[in-house]
């Protein structure tokens, strides 16, 4: 019996492909680094370049491809890129009765969208290629204000309904800000009632365009209440969700939640990594730090910044001594970097509170 196998490469299982920097929403909270003040927007890569990237990483043990942006459906070649990816045969470490072997399989595909271009035919296409669709729903009454468009959330709720009708798996991605916090319960409930299969919650963290909007900053108490509210709705609906943006354990203990999975450790560089619209690799979508061109991905193995994430040299010094130190990253590390220019700095949730609470 084989119970350990050397992986094709050191890369994480998942790559997020930000295939375009363009978007048809102007979300106030958007953390895409190219929307921050003074950032330069590079040209998007071509279809062939993206295919080259996808093929290259599919041979390196990456088996989940998340298409994002900007708004990925704005690209004319979105069908072509998704179709190309779905037909790849990749080598993946598989397990049967605890025995590991390298098997051939099709990659997992995730599409992250704002829902605007998710026509019924697009949904059917996603169903056909066995993709998972994640759609952003930042509030109900606050939707127009937060997304910067005059539209209502009905479009997104309809996407969930239409997807549910054809059995396409969906997730409602809800970014919680000070503005939509008051209707968090209703937003989660509306998404589930419309047919969303799961909920992904991200607390707002200042980055990208969000840096221009301090009015979105959540209070310490609100950050604390978010998982409690979500758990309440999810239990009532017998559904599941997870909190994406890692929480410090002193604010939310994952063991207290049954239907909501609360992450307290960052998955950047170990669970996933990002390739930006210009082909540069970053540890996560939130990060403004471009590490190298995708063609030089092998250099990441010695990249200090990357290794800081892999081996967790980025935890706050202030947290040392906490009994939960090994199990927790003390909040979002990349946000600490953006917020204080220090990867081992404080998550902004602690800007007015002591780090031990």
């Amino acid at each position, binding site marked *: 019996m084989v119970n350990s*196998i050397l*992986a094709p490469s050191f890369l994480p299982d998942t790559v997020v492909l930000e295939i375009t920097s363009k978007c048809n929403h102007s979300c106030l909270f958007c953390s895409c680094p190219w929307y921050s003040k003074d950032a330069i927007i590079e040209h998007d890569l071509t279809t062939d370049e993206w295919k080259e990237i996808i093929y290259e990483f599919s041979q390196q043990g990456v088996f989940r491809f998340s298409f994002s942006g900007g708004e990925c459906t704005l690209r004319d070649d979105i069908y072509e890129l998704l179709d190309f990816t779905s037909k790849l045969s990749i080598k993946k470490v598989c*397990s049967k009765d605890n025995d590991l072997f390298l098997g051939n399989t099709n990659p997992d595909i995730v599409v992250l969208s704002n829902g605007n271009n998710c026509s019924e035919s697009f949904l059917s296409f996603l169903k056909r290629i066995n993709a*998972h669709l994640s759609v952003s729903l930042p509030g109900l009454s606050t939707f127009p204000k937060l997304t910067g468009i005059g539209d209502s959330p009905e479009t997104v709720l309809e996407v969930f309904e239409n997807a549910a009708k054809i059995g396409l798996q969906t997730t409602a991605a809800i970014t919680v800000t000070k503005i939509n916090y008051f209707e968090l319960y209703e937003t989660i*409930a509306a998404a589930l009632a419309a047919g969303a299969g799961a909920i*992904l919650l991200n607390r707002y963290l200042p980055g990208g365009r969000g840096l221009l909007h301090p009015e979105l900053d959540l209070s310490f108490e609100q950050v604390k209440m978010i998982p409690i509210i979500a758990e309440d709705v999810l239990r009532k609906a017998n559904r599941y969700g997870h909190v994406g943006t890692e929480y410090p354990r002193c604010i939310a203990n994952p063991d207290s939640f049954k239907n909501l999975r609360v992450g307290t450790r960052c998955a950047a560089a170990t*669970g996933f990594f990002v390739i930006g619209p210009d082909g540069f690799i970053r540890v996560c979508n939130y990060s403004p730090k471009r590490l190298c061109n995708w063609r030089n991905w092998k250099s990441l193995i010695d990249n200090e910044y990357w290794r800081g994430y892999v081996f967790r040299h980025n935890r706050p010094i202030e947290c040392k001594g906490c009994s939960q130190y090994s199990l927790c990253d003390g909040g979002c590390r990349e946000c600490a970097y953006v917020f204080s220019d220090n990867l081992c700095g404080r998550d902004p949730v602690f800007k007015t509170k002591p780090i031990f609470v």
Partner: protein
Amino acid sequence: MPKRLPKFVLSKDKLDEKLALLKQSPVPPPEPIAMCYSIALPSPEDQKTFSYICPLCGRKTTHSVDKWDILFQLDQIRDASQTLREKGLEIYLDDKNLCSNCCKPRYALGELFWRITIGERTHFVEIYDWENDYSILTSFLSARNKSDYDKLMLKLSGDLSRLEILLGKTNG
């Protein structure tokens, strides 16, 4: 005061009613998806394999679930050794046997060791119960007076052998 919701939005009561109905329908399996951020520590029941990145060579080894307990504790053991170093003992976790590339041929994949350097000499001690090792070494390194040593002896139940092995006095 909560703001008024648009007309098409259902009231909280109505939504609760719908949620209760939804509760009766089958639950789709939770699917971990790659989003902006994802869960770093999936629960074992959700996963059949786990990855280990070797600090020496940087390569990734995929392990089956039977190594979950070890992999889950690696960070805790690394942090514990860091704390012990700060107390004055040059001790490191030697986890290269978790790496298919670096594993020493005569050892089983997954065996963990302490690498301890005292003076000129470096020795390796196999780890069976790292928490116990950490506890006795912490007490030993922190002991300042007779009362501290008395407490440590109580902790050791009079058996000094593990401490001596850790300090390279015997081979164990």
